[in-house]
């Protein structure tokens, strides 16, 4: 590997090294926690550096062990993946900080931090790899780490949720592996940039579409698309809230990322089928998710269902395949990661004041004495709906504008209607947690709640974590211009992958003018 390859490698190996260090330090919780937080901070630093490099000099690629593409594994960063790793690393830092106040000694000494760091390494690897088999490997690394985090603690609900999560996610990865194997059989390459070229030369496009649909199925399970999201509401509300926050923020987005990568770079040969299907799935996912959220009466499960509905919004732009649509998709994805962390973590604090009970009947009365909590909860909640002045507004504006420009009336209508239902869901949640009077408690219950309430030491970790997320969401909403400019470039790179392919394979390999004409309605 040449010296210039380090910016791409560091975001992956930093959390891996920190994970092994944290594993060795598992008997010293404070030291371990510091390693975890410092590792995440270092990762954030390196990812920001990578983003700067990609923003200034275009997509970057490095051939690992100098096995040149398309034969070796390459790591590639275009603006889309560089932006995502930055947000992922920020999420990791916030979660590592908050975890000290939430997960407890038992879980920490049994490997919470190593799992967390490995998950982040897996996420960075999935975002940065330019090799489709390597993408599968990163998915598995991620999956292993999530298995660990999900069942760590071994409560009955966790085991139950873990069983469903395990079974359905294993089906997804096996499907992905099948699709990769068949694609390799047809094209003879695994390098994603090379696949872009080779796929255009395949003489059996119908077979290729079958493989594309297999990829779609595999990533749809991972991303939690209708009707394959059953594992998500079955498991996300079972582990500690901070783990739910991490899962809700990152896991489904990695599925969406892979979908966007594969369906912009590789499978653009028959968009009427593949992208048409994506549009239908986006509509159904938005509706199913938001109705699921409206039907639940438990804060954690409501939040879990909002994860599903938001995935539908993110797919609008990919289904349209227009510049405005992809701008919306990329921006929405980035801000939704932050929104999910903010909502789940602020919700986690609210739940702590209710002795970890999250049913609507057991919540309430936090407005008067926890006003700051209401504010840091309200900011991501507003972004979830898409209200100005926070970040979600710009994402939804771009998505809806993209859909209108493409004259995709059904997508537009459903997106707006689903947003209204989201407003109802979030409004009801906010009223329940903050404005409704606190439920009447027995003496014993009041004592239990006092015991669960965050201590001063907990607050020293929780408050900065949650506030940082809220500030970033608000900042993204008010100073959206520079980020939107970057996102616009990222969308252009997705629509016209010439720069990506040049970075990986050199200038000679670029195929003639891109064949993308408009989108699918």
């Amino acid at each position, binding site marked *: 590997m040449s010296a210039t390859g380090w910016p791409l490698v560091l975001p992956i190996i930093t959390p891996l090294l920190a994970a092994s260090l944290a594993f060795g330090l598992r008997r010293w919780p404070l030291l371990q926690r510091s390693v975890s937080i410092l590792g995440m901070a270092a990762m954030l630093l390196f990812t920001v550096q990578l983003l700067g490099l990609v923003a200034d000099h275009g997509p970057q690629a490095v051939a690992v062990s100098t096995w040149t593409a398309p034969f070796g594994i390459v790591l590639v960063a275009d603006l889309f993946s560089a932006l995502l790793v930055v947000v992922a690393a920020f999420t990791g830092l916030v979660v590592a900080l908050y975890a000290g106040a939430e997960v407890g000694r038992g879980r920490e000494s049994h490997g919470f931090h190593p799992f967390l760091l490995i998950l982040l390494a897996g996420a960075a690897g999935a975002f940065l790899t330019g090799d489709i088999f390597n993408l599968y490997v990163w998915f598995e690394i991620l999956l292993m780490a999530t298995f660990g985090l999900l069942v760590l603690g071994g409560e009955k609900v966790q085991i139950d949720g873990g069983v469903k999560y395990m079974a359905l996610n294993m089906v997804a990865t096996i499907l992905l*592996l099948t699709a990769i194997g*068949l694609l390799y059989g047809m094209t003879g390459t695994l390098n994603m940039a090379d696949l872009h070229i080779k796929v255009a030369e395949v003489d059996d496009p119908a077979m290729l579409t079958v493989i594309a649909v297999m990829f779609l199925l595999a990533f749809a399970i991972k991303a939690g698309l209708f009707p394959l999201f059953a594992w998500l509401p079955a498991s996300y*509300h079972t582990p500690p809230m901070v783990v739910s926050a991490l899962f809700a923020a990152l896991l489904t987005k990695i599925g969406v990322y892979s979908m966007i990568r594969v369906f912009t770079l590789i499978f653009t040969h028959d968009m009427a089928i593949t992208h048409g299907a994506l549009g239908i799935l986006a509509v159904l996912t938005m509706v199913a998710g938001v109705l699921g959220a409206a039907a639940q009466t438990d804060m954690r499960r409501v939040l879990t269902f909002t994860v599903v509905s938001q995935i539908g919004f993110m797919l609008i732009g990919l289904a349209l395949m227009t510049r405005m649509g992809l701008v919306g998709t990329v921006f929405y994805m980035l801000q939704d990661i932050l929104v999910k962390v903010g909502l789940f973590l602020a919700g986690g604090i609210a739940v702590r004041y209710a002795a970890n009970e999250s049913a609507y009947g057991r919540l309430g009365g936090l407005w008067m004495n926890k006003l700051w909590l209401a504010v840091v909860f309200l900011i991501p909640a507003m972004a979830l709906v898409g209200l100005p002045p926070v970040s979600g507004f710009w994402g939804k504006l771009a998505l809806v504008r993209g859909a209108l420009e493409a004259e995709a009336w059904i997508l537009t209508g459903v997106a707006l209607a689903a947003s209204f239902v989201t407003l109802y869901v979030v409004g009801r949640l906010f009223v329940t947690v903050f404005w409704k009077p606190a439920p009447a408690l027995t003496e014993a219950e009041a004592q239990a709640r006092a015991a669960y309430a965050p201590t001063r030491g907990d607050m020293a970790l929780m408050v900065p974590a949650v506030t940082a997320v809220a500030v970033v969401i608000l900042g993204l909403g008010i100073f959206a211009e520079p980020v939107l400019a970057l996102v616009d470039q990222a969308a252009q790179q997705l629509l016209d992958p010439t720069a990506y392919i040049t970075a990986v394979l050199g200038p000679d390999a670029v195929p003639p003018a891109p064949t993308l004409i408009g989108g699918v309605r």
Partner: protein
Amino acid sequence: MDFVLPVLIGVLVACSIYLMLSRNLVRVVLGLSLLSNAVNLIIFTSGRLTRAIPPLVAEGGTLPPEGYANPLPQALVLTAIVIGFGLLAFALVLTYRAYQELGTVDTTAMRHAEPQFDEPYDDLSEARAMRHAAERGNV
């Protein structure tokens, strides 16, 4: 071989899907492991099958002999086997733990994360669920 392997893969996939449709978690896990092996064979076959020409470069040469076997799918399968083994180990431990903690391997009786008894307005489904649980001895 080009005929035998696809048939074998088909049989393996069919068996694994049959197993995964079961409510018994042990069968589901067995089905998953069978499926991952079937997929390994898919990758192996998709690398084209050749006979008796190993991909080895002769001394002093720069290329392996003409018509050599494609070594890449084997490397991929090896990776997939290792990962599949890790996942299978976890799945088995989780299944055993679920049996210990929840007292059953019947997935329809695992309702701790998504309880079905919280719907007082739907007495019929509750009665049905209770009867179902009682029949299986899970109450």
